[in-house]
């Protein structure tokens, strides 16, 4: 395959434009692999790269004349075929990758993206727990997002296996296995597909322990599902269904923001003796890269984290939305000369409201942001819980910056999305109130 060596990221858009017009599909492939192999990994560059690959894949999707090479997905279905570069094989590790670093706690780390961090967590879970099983649609082949790559080969086809395309059946099956004392890790391919399984999760998994007076439980059960916007997912590959499950006592709901968090939180979720819904920000699968500890570690559930200290406004989010909020904060701090306190909720059920209240008592102002629609969203719950406990500390009405009360739009995604500008504007309004 002819390839293009890219040594200047700025030159790429022009190049793409040119290749696009002459339909040189194979060269586009070359660019993709070059980007993958490039060592340009600053945050800004990552965003540029992400936009680039989104652009390429969008162009390819639009052009019927361009033939995609076959992708190794069996039983492909739904209106959206997964041709995003998110789906490509991980590049082979280079020598540079093999150099280990050490994190603040002195743990050896390695540069890892989010889906690989998830892969490592499941690898560790399967290796350390002989009762652990991993299953779902296409997981034996690595899953559509490559999260389970290599796990069947390593842990055996009896422990890592494909299911038919039937989410309700998968969930019921998972509950039955977990009730037998197994650690069941069930993948729902997209969080949007979790709704056929809603009854099983809400009525069976969440209530198993309670209704049997603690004779049976499905504590070993973890549902993993990729959630959220991805740039072009449309109605059924972009939703954030966390609020539905947060309305269900008996479940825990967890959303990680980065590879380090994903690995630690997923291991904690798998080992938690309660059923957990673990929502993975699919936007970040490839684009979020961090130094991730190689060892087995857990990050406790039910604890929010202040990831940035500030004085003037408290900002609450989770998952991929935190990157957006970081951008908004940067803008606000530059333009308004203020400091913001950013909190990652991490676990959405049960909510660690103490951490938020403590911060709001300091700043007097609160902004909550999520991708899901506003009405009935979790921001409302947090806002209410905070005003119950810190009413007299509030100096402005609590702000919610969320998706609109519409289905997740396809062409209007950028319009729908609670992006950095919308958040910046809300911060500004809070400050000027």
């Amino acid at each position, binding site marked *: 395959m002819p390839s293009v060596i890219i040594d200047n990221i700025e030159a790429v858009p022009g190049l793409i434009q040119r290749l696009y017009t002459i339909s040189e599909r194979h060269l586009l492939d070359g660019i993709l692999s070059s980007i993958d192999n490039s060592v340009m990994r600053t945050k800004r560059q990552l965003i540029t790269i992400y936009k680039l690959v989104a652009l390429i894949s969008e162009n390819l999707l639009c052009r019927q004349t361009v033939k995609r090479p076959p992708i190794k997905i069996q039983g492909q279905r739904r209106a959206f075929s997964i041709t995003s570069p998110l789906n490509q094989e991980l590049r082979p590790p280079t020598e540079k990758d093999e150099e280990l670093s050490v994190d603040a706690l002195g743990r050896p780390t390695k540069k890892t993206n989010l889906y690989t961090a998830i892969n490592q967590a499941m690898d560790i879970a399967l290796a350390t727990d002989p009762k652990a099983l991993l299953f779902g649609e296409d997981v034996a082949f690595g899953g559509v997002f490559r999260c389970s790559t290599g796990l069947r080969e390593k842990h055996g086809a009896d422990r890592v296996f494909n*299911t038919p395309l*039937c989410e*309700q059946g998968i969930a*019921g*099956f998972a509950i039955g296995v977990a009730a037998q004392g197994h650690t069941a890790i069930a993948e729902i391919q997209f969080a949007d597909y979790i709704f056929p399984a809603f009854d099983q999760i809400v009525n069976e998994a969440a209530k198993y*322990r*309670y209704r049997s007076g603690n004779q049976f439980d499905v504590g070993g059960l973890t549902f993993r599902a990729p959630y959220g916007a991805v740039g072009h997912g449309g109605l059924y590959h972009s939703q954030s269904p966390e609020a539905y499950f947060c309305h269900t*006592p008996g479940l825990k709901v967890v959303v990680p923001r980065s590879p380090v968090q994903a690995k630690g939180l997923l291991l904690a979720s798998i080992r938690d003796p309660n059923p957990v819904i673990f929502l993975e920000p699919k936007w970040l699968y490839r684009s979020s890269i961090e130094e991730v500890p190689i060892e087995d570690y857990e990050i406790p559930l039910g604890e929010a984290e202040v990831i940035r200290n500030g004085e003037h406004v408290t900002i609450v989010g989770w998952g991929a939305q935190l990157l957006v909020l970081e951008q908004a904060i940067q803008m606000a701090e530059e333009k308004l000369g203020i400091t913001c306190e950013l909190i990652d909720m991490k676990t959405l059920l049960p909510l660690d409201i103490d951490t938020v209240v403590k911060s709001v008592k300091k700043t007097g102002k609160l902004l909550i942001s999520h991708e899901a629609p506003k009405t009935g969203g979790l921001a409302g719950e947090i806002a209410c819980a905070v005003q119950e406990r810190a009413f007299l500390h509030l100096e402005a009405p609590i702000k919610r910056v969320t998706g609109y009360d519409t289905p997740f739009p396809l062409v209007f995604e950028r319009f729908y999305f609670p992006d950095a500008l919308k958040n910046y504007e809300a911060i500004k309004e809070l400050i000027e109130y």
Partner: protein
Amino acid sequence: MMGLRSLRTIQTIQPRRSFATAAEPQKVAEKAKKKDKFTIGKDGTITVEFGVNPFRGHKLEPPPAVATTTKEELLNFFKQMTLWRRVEVAADNLYKAKQIRGFLHLYNGQEAIVAGYESVLNKDDHVITAYRCHANFMGRGGTPFEVISELTGKATGCASGKGGSMHMYKRDTNFHGGNGIVGAQVPIGAGAAFGLKYNGKPNVCIAMYGDGAANQGQNFEAFNMAALWKLPVIFVCENNKYGMGTSAERAAANTEYFTRGDAVPGLKIDAMNVLSVKSGFAFAKEWALTKGPILVEAETYRYMGHSMSDPGLAYRTRDEVAAIRAERDPIDKVKLYLLENQLATEEELKEHEKEIKRTVDEAVKKAADAPLPEAKELYTDIYTDMPYYVRHTNIEDSLVVEK
């Protein structure tokens, strides 16, 4: 839930005779003439050749129309089924006396299914069923006292009073309940069977559902997975002829439920006779252990309404129910076997009935005196590490701050 639904569905539907025996009494009489043939061996083993073949197969050769039993087993069947019916009668009365609140679904008429499969299973096998679960629970070793306590919401109930009629569980004998959502237990049963197979256990899981639930989509998801992975599961469709207030014919385009597993072979059993149920399940267990899933249609009849809010006569005639009771009652059938073959006397059986009535009356009395669950039971068993965490309940003000 179920009760409300039944209220809605019991409209002014014209009574319809859907049960063959009720519609054609002559045929029933003819059938009755074809008597079962009893042979009692020297060692006490009884062989019964059925006059009418109780089996039909789908994608399998059904077992021969024969059953073996003993005098002791027949007597045990009689005692078990009488006890279970007595408990249901007591529950009926307690409900009418407003001692049981909420939903109550009774098993009267269907007892031979549980008695039959329990004679084949051991306690390491698993059972999961829907909300009509009292007899299944007692079949797995539960006591009438635990049932009545649970029904009346007492701490001594089999789920500490937290489940009620629809949620009876027994951990030590692998009874998974007791599920309130129509059909939801079927894939769970497939998952449990996977666990058995994965751990190399020589056991099966029985996953039961009714003819009403047979039209739920998730059954077919479970059938498919079970067939794909050859899971040791016996799917049991208890065809009691009515899904709530709608007869099978009105609800299903194909009422041959034993054929509806597609790739899963099926066996239809006359489940009004405990001996044919026993033979059928012996065959089914062997099949599940060696070949994979099997779908058993247990043809039975429900004497009572769907739930207590359904008198059970808006969609069928009194005559229909009376005819089945008279001709095919599973307890009477065993009684007849015992009496006709001089294995027991009328007096002996009466004595057993009296004894059983005493047991149940005592259980009712004991349950009435039993304590209510402690207030903290509202909070416990939701999460392991946060026993008192409930959304929107102010823990600080609650009675049970122990943290």
